[in-house]
C-alpha cells in the first residue's frame, strides 16, 4: 500500500526534481571557465609593441596558426611556446631552425623565465614581463613607440647595449647627462667616452630626419676628461647656445646643443 503511494507520488515528483537538478547544476556548468585575463607581457624591442599573454600557453612563430605571429624570415613557422606552469614561466623551443635565446643563452627544449628577461626568436628581440613596469615603459615609449613621433624624439641605438637599452648604466658621481629639451628625458653619459649624434643607425642619439647628417656631431671627452662637442662636417651644421660649432668646443652646465631644430641640453651638476 505504502509502495503504491510512493510510486503514485514519485512519478509526479521525480520529473520535477530531475528538472530542477539539471537546471541548478546545468546553470553552473554553462558558465565555464573564468576569463584568464592578462597574466604577462611580451614587448617587442623593435617597435615597443606590447603583447598581452592572455592564456597559459602562447605559441610564437611565423605561421598564422600561432597566437603571436612574427613575420620575420629568421623565425620558424612554429618557433616557440611561452607557458605558465605551476606558477612559473617556461619558454619552450619547438624545434625552431634559428633557435631561441633567453638573455643570450640558447634554449635547449625549455628554460624558465624571470620577469624582465630578454627573449630572442631568430633575430627578433622581445622583453618578457609578468607585469608592465612603471618606469621603463615611459622611457620606452618616448624612445621607441610610435614611429611618427620619431622626428621629435631621440632614438637611442640599442645594438651596442642589448639588454639595457635606455640607460646604459647607473648614474655615477659626476652625474653628467644629456637632456632632450622636448621630452625632458635624460641620457646619462658618465660611463661613456663619446656620444654620436646623427641619422645613422649606430648613432647614440639618433635623429631620424633627412636634414640631419648620418654622422652629424660628436660629444666626447678631451684629454682632460672634459666634455667637448664638435661638428662632423654636417650639411646643416650644429649650434651651441645659438653659435655655430666650427671646432671642438668645451661644454658647460646648461649648454644647449641644437641640431636641425632639435635641442639637447648638457647638464653638469658639478
Amino acid at each position, binding site marked *: 500500500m505504502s509502495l503504491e503511494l510512493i510510486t503514485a507520488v514519485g*512519478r509526479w515528483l521525480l520529473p520535477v526534481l530531475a528538472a530542477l537538478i539539471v537546471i541548478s547544476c546545468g546553470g553552473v556548468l554553462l558558465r565555464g571557465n573564468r576569463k584568464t585575463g592578462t597574466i604577462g607581457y611580451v614587448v617587442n624591442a623593435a617597435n615597443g609593441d606590447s603583447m598581452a599573454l*592572455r*592564456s*597559459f*600557453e*602562447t*605559441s610564437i612563430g611565423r605561421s598564422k*596558426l*600561432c*597566437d603571436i605571429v612574427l613575420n620575420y624570415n629568421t623565425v620558424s613557422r612554429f618557433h616557440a611556446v611561452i607557458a605558465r606552469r605551476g606558477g612559473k614561466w617556461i619558454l619552450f623551443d619547438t624545434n625552431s631552425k634559428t633557435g631561441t635565446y633567453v638573455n643570450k643563452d640558447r634554449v635547449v627544449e625549455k628554460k624558465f623565465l624571470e620577469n624582465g628577461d630578454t627573449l630572442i626568436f631568430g633575430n627578433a628581440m622581445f622583453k618578457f614581463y609578468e607585469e608592465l613596469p612603471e618606469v621603463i615603459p615611459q622611457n620606452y615609449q618616448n624612445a621607441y613607440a610610435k614611429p611618427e613621433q620619431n622626428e621629435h624624439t631621440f632614438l637611442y641605438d640599442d645594438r651596442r647595449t642589448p639588454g639595457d637599452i635606455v640607460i646604459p648604466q647607473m648614474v655615477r658621481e659626476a652625474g653628467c647627462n644629456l637632456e632632450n629639451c622636448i621630452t625632458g628625458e635624460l641620457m646619462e653619459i658618465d660611463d661613456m667616452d663619446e656620444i654620436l649624434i646623427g641619422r645613422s643607425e649606430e648613432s647614440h642619439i639618433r635623429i631620424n630626419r633627412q636634414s640631419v647628417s648620418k654622422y652629424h656631431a660628436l660629444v666626447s671627452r678631451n684629454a682632460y676628461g672634459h666634455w667637448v662637442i664638435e661638428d662632423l662636417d654636417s650639411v646643416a651644421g650644429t649650434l651651441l647656445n645659438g653659435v655655430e660649432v666650427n671646432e671642438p668646443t668645451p661644454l658647460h652646465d646648461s649648454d644647449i646643443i641644437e641640431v636641425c631644430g632639435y635641442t639637447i641640453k648638457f647638464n653638469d651638476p658639478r
Partner: protein
Amino acid sequence: MNRIFKRTKWMYFLAILFLVGLTILAILFGTHARKWVMQPYNKHIYSSSGLVGGSTLYDRNGDVLVETVDGQRKYNKNATVRKATLHVVGDAEGYISTGAQTAFASQLTGYDLINGLYSMKQKPHDLTLTIDGGLSATAYRAMTEKGYDKGCVGVYNYKTGEILAAVSLPTYDIENKPAIDTSKDRWDAVYMNRFFKGKYTPGSTFKVITSACALENIDNIMNQSFNCNGAYTVVRGSQVKCTASHGRLSFRSALNHSCNSAFAAIASAQLTNDQLTATAEEFGFNDTIDVNGIECAKSYFSLEDAYAIDRAWCGIGQYETLVCPCHEIAIMGAIANKTGSTPNPTLIMKTVNIGTLSYVSSDIATQLDDLLRSNVTNYYSDSKFPNLKMCGKTGTAQVSGKEPHTLFAGYSQRDDLPLAIVVVLENSGGYGLTNCIPIANAVMQDALDRYT
C-alpha cells in the same frame, strides 16, 4: 592557445545535432506513441490469454460480450451471440484488426500520453458497444438457417449513428476456435469484418445513385417514360440485358421493377460521365468512413475515359463501381433522414461529437425516400415487411466465374424504429428479392419486438 579556444566554437555544432535528434525523437513519441503502445507483444496490455487488466466489453443492453475471469478472457455465454459478434468484439490475439479488443485497445487501456498505461493498472477501463447481441444473433441465424455462409448484415440507427449489428460470415466460436486454414474457400477472409472492410459490386442498389443523378440533372425525369423490350442497345452490337421485357414504364416504375433497360438508357443517353461521377462522389464514393478509428473500406467509383456502354453498365451498378456495406447503410440513412445527411456510424455508446456525413440535398433525399418507399409498396409488397413501413432497394451483382452476390439496402420509416439495414449475401445466386428481403425482414421484425 587562443587558436585552440576558437576551435571549440565548432564543438557546439555537435550539441545542436544532439538536440535536433532529441527533438525528432520527442516529435516521434508525440505522434506515434499510441500506435507503438498498441502492439500485440506489449505485455502491459496483452498476456498470452488476452487483455491484461480485465477490461470488460458490454453490448447496448449491458450484456457482457467479453470479460476477464481468473485471468482468462471469457466471452458471451451464448454461442450464437459469440459467433454473431465475433468480428465486432474481436480476439485477444489481434487477428481481427477491426475487433474492438484491438481497434479500441487505447480506449480499453485508458492510454494517454501523460500517464501511459499507468491508469490501466489501477482500474480496468470498460467499454459499452452499441451492438445488440440478441439482434446480432437473430441476423446470424437468419443468414445461416438459409444456408448462406458468406456475407454480412448491418443494422444502423440513422438518428443516432449507432451500429446495432454488424454480423459477418464466415465466423467461428471464439471459445471453441476451430482449425482455420485461410487458404480454404470455407474460411475466405474469415478475420475480416465484411460490414466494415468488404467491397462489393452494388448491382441494382446503385440505381439509387443513378436516380439521384437523374433527379439532379434531368428536369422532367419524373414525367419521362421508357420502353423495355428485354434489353437496351447502346450502339449496334453492345446492349444491356434486362431481367424481363417490362414494356412501357414510368421512371418510378422503372426503379420499382429495377428495369435495366430504362436505367441503362438514362445513364448512357441522358447523363454524362462527369454528372454521374459528381453524384457518386457527393454520396461519398472514393472516400472512407471512420468508425471510432476503424477505417472502412473505400467505396470505389470511376468513369474515367468511359464510353456510353460503360456508362450504361455503370447506371445499373455493374461497371467498376464497388461499395462498402457500411457506406451503403450510411447512404440509406441520409435518405431516410430526408435531410441528405446522417450521423457518422459509431460502435461505442455515448460517443460525443461523432460527426455527420452529408451526402445530398434534402430535396433530392425526400424524393429518393418517396421512390424507395414505392419500391416496397409497388413491387416488393408491404407483406414482405409487416408493420415496418420499409423502404429499400435490392440488387444482384454479377461476379465473374461465380454465382452472383445478392444485396438489399433499406430502412424503416417508422419514427419509433429509425433503423437502416444492409444485407449482402456472397455468391448466393438468385435475387435480392428472394434471398435478402426475408433476412432483412427477420432482423427488422426482431428489432421491432425489441425496441417498440
